[in-house]
């Protein structure tokens, strides 16, 4: 009896409307990621370290007050971390990064409203760092920066047994920014203790900091929310002041989206 009730409840939930048409709705997506990461920072070591990683992200999309209903705003917060190991020894590097972004998208609704394409821009700022026990006077590296990123979304709604599912792809690519960068052989003793600076703020663009955030997700309605899962890639790279860095996060994402209707 209880199973039948739960089955009917599930069917009822699956018939909930999709939040695809933004209209006057706010969509909040919380995703947790687990996977692997590869971390390189030639200031610390010439080797790429790899190991498990985790992340949490929160993305909010809502209609803008302008743009005739075609423009939406997006806010994004993410925190990711990894505990990586050297390929040649048992040494470890902790890596972590906090990212905050906000911006706008112009939306196009195609295929009878089943396909939403959005393109826009984000203002991003991030901070983080890597820390390991390999170096004595160079044990860690801090990261701090801000950039303007191009952002695109493709979301397609389809039905599976009368249940509205949504497949979405989101790509953010930083185009121009400013980033703190240690000089090639500069020690933190010089920078922070003696106050010696040397081209520590660098302009970044895809040719010296080719980075990317990608989320490919599938969501289906479950109760009042939507279960969302998929693949997430966070590719952070830079080659500044002769030092090369990368943080490649590949993760399985799972979380939920909620749609809140705004009554005005």
């Amino acid at each position, binding site marked *: 009896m209880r199973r039948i009730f739960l089955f009917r409840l599930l069917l009822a939930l699956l018939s909930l409307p999709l939040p695809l048409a933004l209209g006057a709705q706010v969509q909040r997506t919380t995703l947790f990621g687990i996977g692997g990461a590869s971390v390189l920072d030639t200031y610390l070591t010439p080797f790429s370290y790899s190991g498990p990683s985790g992340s949490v992200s929160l993305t909010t999309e809502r209609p803008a007050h302008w743009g005739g209903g075609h423009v939406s705003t997006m806010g994004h917060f993410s925190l990711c971390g990894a505990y990586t190991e050297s390929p040649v020894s048992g040494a470890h590097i902790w890596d972590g990064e906090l990212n905050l972004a906000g911006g706008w998208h112009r939306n196009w609704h195609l295929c009878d409203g089943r396909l939403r394409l959005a393109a826009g821009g984000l203002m991003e700022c991030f901070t983080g760092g890597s820390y390991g026990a390999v170096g004595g006077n160079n044990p860690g590296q801090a990261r701090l920066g801000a950039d303007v990123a191009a952002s695109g979304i493709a979301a397609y709604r389809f039905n599976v047994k009368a249940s509205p599912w949504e497949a979405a792809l989101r790509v953010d690519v930083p185009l121009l920014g400013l980033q703190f960068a240690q000089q090639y052989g500069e020690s933190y003793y010089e920078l922070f203790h003696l106050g010696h600076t040397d081209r520590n703020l660098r302009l970044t663009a895809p040719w010296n900091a080719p980075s990317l955030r990608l989320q490919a997700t599938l969501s289906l309605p479950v109760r009042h929310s939507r279960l969302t899962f998929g693949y997430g890639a966070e590719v952070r790279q830079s080659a500044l002041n*002769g030092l090369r860095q990368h943080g490649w996060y590949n993760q399985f994402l799972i979380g939920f989206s909620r749609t809140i209707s705004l009554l005005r």
Partner: protein
Amino acid sequence: MKRFLLLLSLPCLLCACITEDYDGVSTPRAAFEALWTTLDERYCFFDYKQVDWQAVHDRFSRSITDTMQRAALFDTLARMTYTLKDGHVNLSSSMNTSRYGAWFDDHPMNFSDSLLHKTLGRAEDFRSAGGMQYRVLAGDSIGYVRVASFDTTPSTAAMSEMLYSFKDCPALILDLRSNGGGLLTAAEALASSFIGEHTLVGYMQHKTGKAHNAFSAPEEIWLEPSRGSRWLRPVVILTNRRCYSAANAFVMYMRTQRHVLQVGDTTGGGSGLPFSSELPYGWTIRFSASPMLNTDMEHTEWGIAPHIHADITSEDYRRSTDTILETARKKLHELLTPQSNTINP
């Protein structure tokens, strides 16, 4: 639609992988090349020491074979690093840590625990705080401070207490012999107790690229006077060849002061702030990365010569005479007058 997808993929095309130089494979050849390249790109004294690093590569490369044992490989690589004549260049593995030692082994020791014990006396005869041991010298009015290392930073309170205990002394002897260094910040903290004003004590630069001569412009190093007690009466620093790294920097800072005299042997040097990097087999290499210069913009990598040179001879050891300490005492008594605080020639 096509245009949108093209627009979406265009930024992705701009992305390129930024990757490592080494794939993590550990072979004798990979270890040799990684060590040579790391030093080639990041070591800071090639030009100053006039080392032909390419010639070193060619010479040692012939010794590397795929079948050589790790111990033999380690010894070969260690010998390669010795060509840099730098105590800050150390190859480390679980079996050994290489260290170039000619900078002290080829010189008199000029120090012994027995002589130190004779100077400090029994444990209850001297104070010990902030990494320093100190007392007023027996049968004299001169204060004596033993600073064996800069591994810990003495607190302002500890330094003030130490100086206050010498309030009735006209002069002080700082014994830095065999102080192998430690934290630059500890050396700065102690030196700040011996300066009276905002003082330029040297310069520092760093590499800006892989070329052997790619350096930043030297930037000034300033010291602020301690917020606690300050000692502006005459000071003699005792040095030997084993005064190295942060101890060498401390002497460099102190040599800017006119009330400071250096007695003993030339310091060991070690003026390049060391960095570390990783090699195949999990070995690590430490190397000089950022050179420090004195106020005349001269390197102190080979050491700082004393104002008054003195050595402890075999006969001195037999007689339990610390010749360097006695030279310092004698010089202080010769130079001291009640009003004088300038003994630096």
